């Protein structure tokens, strides 16, 4: 496989399989399931290949593929992934086959359409993760809505129509507002004639303006006279543009108070819908903040750091308190998502290396642990068709293996040391305390960990332990081989990511460095050279030229602006699993000292 085509295969292989599945006869449910599983496994293999091909320390965006698309408006078909995208691609690839396995017997109606929706959704999600053209990202981002809407609206439970509509409209409103802001950025970032939707053009085009806008904000004169077009626009409209991007992604995350669609969507969705929603789609929100909202508008983002950190903390505590009050297990898992994604957002908004690394790691953790929780609960629901805790009790006697699996995933969710959850939440809290955020952010966020343990363990206790109060629970059969096969990868991930986080942290490290540099760019006291943050991508191939099939051009390697990474990568290969080492390493640029916490 040619490297520069690898991402094309990653993105489009599910749709190719979907085209095959579309030709299978409607009645042949087993064939459709096997074909989809096979396609998802192939896609998983390609995702692993892409992850393995990613070299931390080389250029920021790797496996780039870029061809001309609509020259008229300066948009190109441009794929490429950085460290964060690489890990999320891997996560998406892992979830693909597991979702098919988890729905094997659960979906009995309109089987063909269901699997087509799954495959198309897989393409849309992977496409959004690896798009380096913002218009292309936007199209994939919107395209995710349709199959997900169908998954909830067609195969969901009783109130599915309401939940699907709510999910669809919330997300759509946000993304439309973002489209307006995206157009504004398109106009601001480059002069007439050289406009482009490419991430590099948009980001680099705003760079000079960022510094001017930051100086104007610091001068607090209320105007920004003498600045360039980009600088003046960022000063005046930057907060609005940031708000528009943030709204779209905050709905997707979802951040409190925009989370109200999530419990409904999760409760009504079929097990596959919940798994994908929790596993990957919510990450599109955090990924969007990481890739677009914060780097494009660092001045505005820093200006609203406390607001967003505050919303994240409220989300953590509110989600946890809502969980404590739930009787419905699925709703509890949904609210725990609100709480867990609060950590992602808090870590990101801390603007510290630890916080950002933790945030990125927490994105993966949440995908694994909550995806697994939804899948395991789906198995239970398939047997009993009941969602309330009071319907269960003492299941550990009738389903010992299932109980053990559920307990391990629960530990991951409540961040017990040794599981993946611990690494992420610990880093986020560490980053928060080290940051310029006020003390309450860290303290309240930490209380969420305690609440988390309380609601999860309480739920486990009520469902699995105690006496078997209901005769129908006593007759439940334990996991079968298919269910075990779908669960074991999650258990392995929980333990591997918990005990040996280093390989993933290494892949994330370049991305977190760039993210911190970009979010702190032009901050008072931070001396970040322009070269450290600029987006370096493959140039647009000339018109009519054949796409060169070589790996990243030598120019990009020569322009490698991050010598530190090479050392880090070398060390990471040499060292035994050094727990949490990469965040202790110095950043390649100076950051301002954290503000005084108690003024």
């Amino acid at each position, binding site marked *: 496989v040619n490297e520069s085509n690898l991402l094309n295969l990653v993105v489009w292989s599910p749709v190719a399989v979907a085209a095959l599945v579309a030709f299978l006869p409607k009645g042949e449910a087993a064939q459709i399931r096997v074909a989809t599983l096979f396609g998802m496994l192939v896609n998983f293999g390609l995702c692993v290949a892409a992850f393995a091909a990613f070299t931390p320390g080389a250029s920021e965006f790797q496996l780039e593929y870029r061809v001309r698309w609509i020259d*008229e408006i300066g948009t190109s078909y441009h794929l490429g992934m950085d460290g964060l995208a690489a890990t999320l691609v891997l996560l998406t690839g892992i979830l693909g086959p597991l979702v098919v396995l988890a729905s094997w017997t659960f979906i009995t109606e309109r089987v063909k359409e269901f699997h087509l929706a799954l495959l198309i959704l897989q393409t849309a999600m992977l496409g959004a993760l690896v798009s380096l053209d913002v218009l292309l990202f936007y199209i994939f981002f919107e395209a995710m809505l349709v199959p997900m809407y169908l998954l909830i609206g067609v195969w969901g439970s009783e109130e599915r129509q309401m939940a699907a509509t709510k999910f669809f409209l919330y997300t759509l409103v946000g993304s439309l507002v973002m489209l307006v802001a995206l157009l504004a950025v398109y106009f601001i970032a480059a002069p*007439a004639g050289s406009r482009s939707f490419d991430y590099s053009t948009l980001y680099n085009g705003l760079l000079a303006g960022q510094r001017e806008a930051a100086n104007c904000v610091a001068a607090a004169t209320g105007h920004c006279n003498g600045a360039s077009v980009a600088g003046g626009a960022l000063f005046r409209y930057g907060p609005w543009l940031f708000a528009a991007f943030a709204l779209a992604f905050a709905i997707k995350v979802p951040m409190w108070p925009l989370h109200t669609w999530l419990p409904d969507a999760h409760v009504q969705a079929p097990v596959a819908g919940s798994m994908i929603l929790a596993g990957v789609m919510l990450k599109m929100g955090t990924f969007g903040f990481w890739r677009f909202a914060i780097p494009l508008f660092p001045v505005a983002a820093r200006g609203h750091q406390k607001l967003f950190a505050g919303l994240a903390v409220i989300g953590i505590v509110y989600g946890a308190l809502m969980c404590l009050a739930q009787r419905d297990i699925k709703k509890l898992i949904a609210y725990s998502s609100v709480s867990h994604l609060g950590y992602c957002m808090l870590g990101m908004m801390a603007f510290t290396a630890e916080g950002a690394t933790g945030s990125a790691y927490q994105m993966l953790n949440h995908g694994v642990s909550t995806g697994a929780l939804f899948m395991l609960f789906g198995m239970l629901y398939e047997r009993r068709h009941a969602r309330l805790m009071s319907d269960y009790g003492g299941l550990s006697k009738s389903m010992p293996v299932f109980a053990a699996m559920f307990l391990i995933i629960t530990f991951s969710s409540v961040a017990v040391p040794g599981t993946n959850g611990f690494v992420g939440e610990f880093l986020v809290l560490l980053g928060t305390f080290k940051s310029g955020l006020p003390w309450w952010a860290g303290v309240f966020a930490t209380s969420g960990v305690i609440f988390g343990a309380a609601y999860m363990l309480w739920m486990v206790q009520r469902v699995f332990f105690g006496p078997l109060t209901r005769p129908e629970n006593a007759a439940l059969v334990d996991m079968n081989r298919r269910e075990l096969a779908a669960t074991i990868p999650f258990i392995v991930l929980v333990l591997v990511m918990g005990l040996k986080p280093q390989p993933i942290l290494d892949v994330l490290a370049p991305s977190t460095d760039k993210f911190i540099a970009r979010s702190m760019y032009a901050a008072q006291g931070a001396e970040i050279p322009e070269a450290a943050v600029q987006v370096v991508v493959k140039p647009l191939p000339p018109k009519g030229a054949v796409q060169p099939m070589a790996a990243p051009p030598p120019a990009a390697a020569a322009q490698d602006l991050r010598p530190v990474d090479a050392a880090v990568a070398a060390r990471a290969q040499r060292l035994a699993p050094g727990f949490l080492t990469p965040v202790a390493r110095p950043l390649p640029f100076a950051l301002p000292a954290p503000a005084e916490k108690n003024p």
Partner: protein
Amino acid sequence: VNTALTIPTFTAADFLPVMPAAILTIGAIIVLLSEVFLSNKSRAHQAPLSVITALIAMVVAVENAFEPAREVLQGFAVLDPLGSWNSALVSLAAALASLLAAGFLKHRNAERGEFYALMLFGAAGMSLLGLSSELITLFINLEVLSVATYALTAYLRRGPRSAEAGFKYFILGAFSASVLVYGAALLYGATGTTKLNAEMVSALTTAMAPGSGKQMLVYCAFLLLAMGFAFKVAAVPFHMWTPDVYEGAPTPVTALMSAAVKAAAFVAMVRTFLFVGKVVTPEVVFAVLAALAALTMVAGNLMALPQRNVKRMLAYSSIAHAGYLLLAVAALFVPASMANNHDVSIMSASPLGLAPNLAADLYKGILFYLLGYTVTAIGAFGTLSAIERREDETRGSTWDLDRLSGLAQRKPFWAAAMAAFMLSLGGIPPTVGFMGKLLIFRGAVDAGLLGLSLLGILASAAGVYYYLRVVVYMYMRPVPEGAQEPARFWTTELALGTSAVLVVVLGIAPGTITEWLSRAGMVFGR
């Protein structure tokens, strides 16, 4: 004035631009003649005949678009890419509307030869209107297209709405035409010429010179002309007739009116103002156009918001879309004095000020937008025409949103096509509507109209609400009790399919078309 009678000599090249109109007219005559020889009372051949005629005309028009711009027929018409693309658009619209009409008329037992003949005659008028570069020719062609559309509007004359709509359209149309002709007469009074060419420019320059005493006359002429065109393109505040007429007309006719009539009127307007606007104080021209654009964009979208009647909503939406086009037209007339606030590089030494490359971008934007709007609006009205039933007309609920409820379950392909049309009208990628809006707004921003563009973008963002409401009803509402299966006609489905494919393909890969349209920058007289 030389009164001696001279026989003009024409060459074959003079007739090149009028070929599409000639083909359309011949097609119309064949349709009419075939009525005489009908043996078995079957009129099944008429729709395919009209479609084929219109498609041939379209191909010829596209061929013409690559001819260099020049004056023909002694300066009464021009052959330039702008006019040729207009002919192509109009022919495409006529072809799609004829396809829609086949099923529509059959369902109502209203197939008669004059329907397609009127459509083709009207299209010929629209095609000629885009070429006319002489005020009397322009007026006559405007009447040719108008008379045809008046008759088409009232075609279902026994229906409760058609007669009212036809009458309303006729009265207001005649009034607006008289306003236009009044303006033309004043212009002739001030300049002594009706030709829109260098002759007009020099005469106008004399008339506008200080002390000539004719300035007021020229200003009045300009304002009356602007009003006349504003009626035709349905710009606020001259839009009052639009919702009633669009609602009352047979739906395929509405489709043709919203797309083709508007395209032709816009082209004629640009052509007229190119010569008048060169001399009249540019600030005045710009102020009038900018005010019309702002009002039309905002009011069109706001008035569409509360509509539950989808056909009426689409009528208001067509007003809003005229607003975006007016924004681009206004950008063509940005005065040099305004450019001082922005960037001097957008101005050139040409009399109209705007640098040629920016003007070319705007022409391309306008034409691409018209193309996108044509396929989208015809598709949207076509879907409506496919689901409407005669029995509902007396109850006035024919086009209520509820009629679309659950369409996705009853007719998944129709619903998908309608969703594509709605997304395109709303300007959401990857549809042609997004590309068109982007080109128009980019042209306007580059010409320095930041504020107006922002207003337009926000207005169109508000507009997404009512387009998406249609999608929500189709996909998220249950099928209403007692809903009847809409009748299927392969012609209607072919038109819907073609429009839907064009909406998506032109949205994803507009490359070739935009390159072709780039040549529209070569407008005669620039």
